[in-house]
């Protein structure tokens, strides 16, 4: 089992961008899996989740496992939800989908149910799919399996239009290792950002929105996404051990992302930061393996 890890199934913001030129960093819309013990935990269900779903088929069909899948939503914009009807476990009565958001269950349902509308899809409702769907409203920290603490915090996802809240998540395992996820957060000078920086303090791994280049950001102030520079400034301020930038602009290709990375590494104040652009289909350890010696697992207690 080992310590907490994350796997990116989708790294692309706004809309899928599947092309040979984006093959390395990825072309699916956002979905992140948190690997901890044997639990199935995901953040958001962009189209990347469909590929994870395909991989779970062997457990469901061949091994006849009943899966409990926990999905935490940052918010309900298309790119963060649209894969749910194509997440194969949803077609099996043996699956229980636990959907979490700090929003009231009626809001969560309404914003997801549109994906199952009979005019946009061949379905009738999220609640009539084969899987059992349980919608949870987060009202404070929760623990999964008593060993993984999950907390949320409001982020700044644009003020141009009033379209509901967006949330960041903090995962802390039994060893105190900490993962902070701030997707769709605009790290401009604000009370929210100051509060976020404090909340994210000393993360072992910080996953941060970095959709724009600094040169582009001026055209998109208030749209709810950070420039790569703002993201790295937050990494510095919050003393993150390692940082992964995600929510890549749809049409930025692998060559361009590598160039951006290179030019950021040449900026003096970022020289001390361990950062990269998140790659799809890749697993990242939350803590550097060389720093901490993994302790023995407390066997048999996980779900």
């Amino acid at each position, binding site marked *: 089992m080992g310590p907490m890890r994350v796997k990116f199934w989708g790294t*692309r913001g*706004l809309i899928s961008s599947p092309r040979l030129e984006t093959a390395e960093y990825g072309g699916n819309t956002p979905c992140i899996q948190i690997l901890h013990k044997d639990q199935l935990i995901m953040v958001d269900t962009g189209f990347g989740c469909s590929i994870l779903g395909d991989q779970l088929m062997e457990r469901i069909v061949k091994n006849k496992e009943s899966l409990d899948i926990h999905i935490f939503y940052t918010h309900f914009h*298309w790119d963060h939800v649209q894969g749910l009807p194509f997440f194969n476990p949803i077609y099996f009565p043996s699956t229980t989908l636990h959907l979490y958001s700090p929003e009231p269950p009626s809001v969560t349902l309404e914003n997801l149910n549109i*994906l199952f509308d009979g005019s946009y899809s061949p379905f009738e409702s999220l609640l009539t799919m084969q899987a059992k769907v349980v919608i949870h409203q987060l009202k404070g920290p929760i623990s999964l399996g008593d060993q993984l603490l999950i907390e949320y915090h409001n982020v700044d996802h644009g003020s141009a239009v009033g379209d509901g809240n967006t949330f960041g998540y903090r995962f802390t395992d039994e060893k105190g290792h900490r993962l902070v996820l701030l997707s769709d957060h605009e790290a401009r000078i604000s009370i929210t950002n100051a509060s976020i920086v404090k909340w994210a303090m000393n993360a072992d791994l910080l996953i941060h929105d970095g959709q724009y280049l600094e040169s582009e950001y001026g055209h998109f102030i208030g*749209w*709810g996404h950070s420039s790569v520079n703002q993201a790295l400034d937050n990494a510095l301020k919050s003393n993150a051990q390692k940082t992964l930038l995600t929510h890549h602009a749809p*049409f930025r290709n692998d060559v361009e992302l590598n160039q951006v990375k290179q030019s950021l590494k040449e900026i003096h104040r970022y020289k001390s930061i361990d950062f990269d652009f998140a790659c799809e289909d890749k697993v990242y350890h939350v803590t550097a393996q060389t720093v901490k010696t993994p302790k023995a697992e407390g066997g048999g207690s996980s779900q």
Partner: protein
Amino acid sequence: MTMLLKFWGVRGSRPTHKKSLLGFGGNSTCLEFCVEDTDFNLFLDGGSGLAWRGHSIPALNRIKKYHFLVTHTHWDHILGYPFFSPIYHEHNQFNFYASNTTRSSFTELFFGLQRLGNLPVPVSALKAKINFQTVLPQQPFSIEGKVEVDTYQLNHQGVTLGYKLKRNQASVCIITDNAPIENGNYLGEGMRSKAQTLGPQVFEDQFNEGLVNFLKDTHTVVFDTHFMERDLKPDWGHSSPEKALNFCAKAKVKRLILFHHAPEDQDSAVLEKVNSIKNRGASMGIDVVPAKEGEEWDLCG
């Protein structure tokens, strides 16, 4: 050439990104027709491929017209519209040709994409002039007198339209999404009651003969071949290479382009589909090829 077809999205159900399938492309449905001696852009459907297409269109300070033929409103065919940049520019004019269902109108569903809970861009941000024209099955119309268009209701949920486009010697049919009709899998709106009135056999024969007539003597047919024959799921609304070829053979078309690749189809699976009917097609004078993102096809000769 008088009209070319270009594929911007060839994938069915959803866009998908995996290194093993990017050879043919991972974007969902979007086709463009480039028509000689015209100044408009003509598309069929607005899947994720449309967003990528829009990325290369500059904002102009003059009127530019965009015509969209709409097959139906399932997600994979429409999710790219809000991400097609020309729709935010005031000089542009959009015409959507679409069917309505008893359940909802295309206009309603189109603006529903800008639903605030799911997209932070309100309808008021769509600065282009947008016009909607209702299309009824088998009622021909023309695009600015330059392209003749006819439609046929397919066996798929709602009122899904197959399209035929003609321009001088060039002709093409787009048949997606469509399930073979067998054993009462009547998916399209109105089909069940028609089958009850006429009797199932008469209705099925009428549907199949009607589709053959619709395709008759068309140069190129783009056909939904989501499933291999052995994997056909009658209620899912999709077809197979064999079924596609059977129709094309009866209609004496010259080229069959396999389309709507299943999201799990790797490049090798797409080739397997082509190879499964390539020789039989050739023996009847039909060139069978796979739809591939970025590829262009002439539609005559």
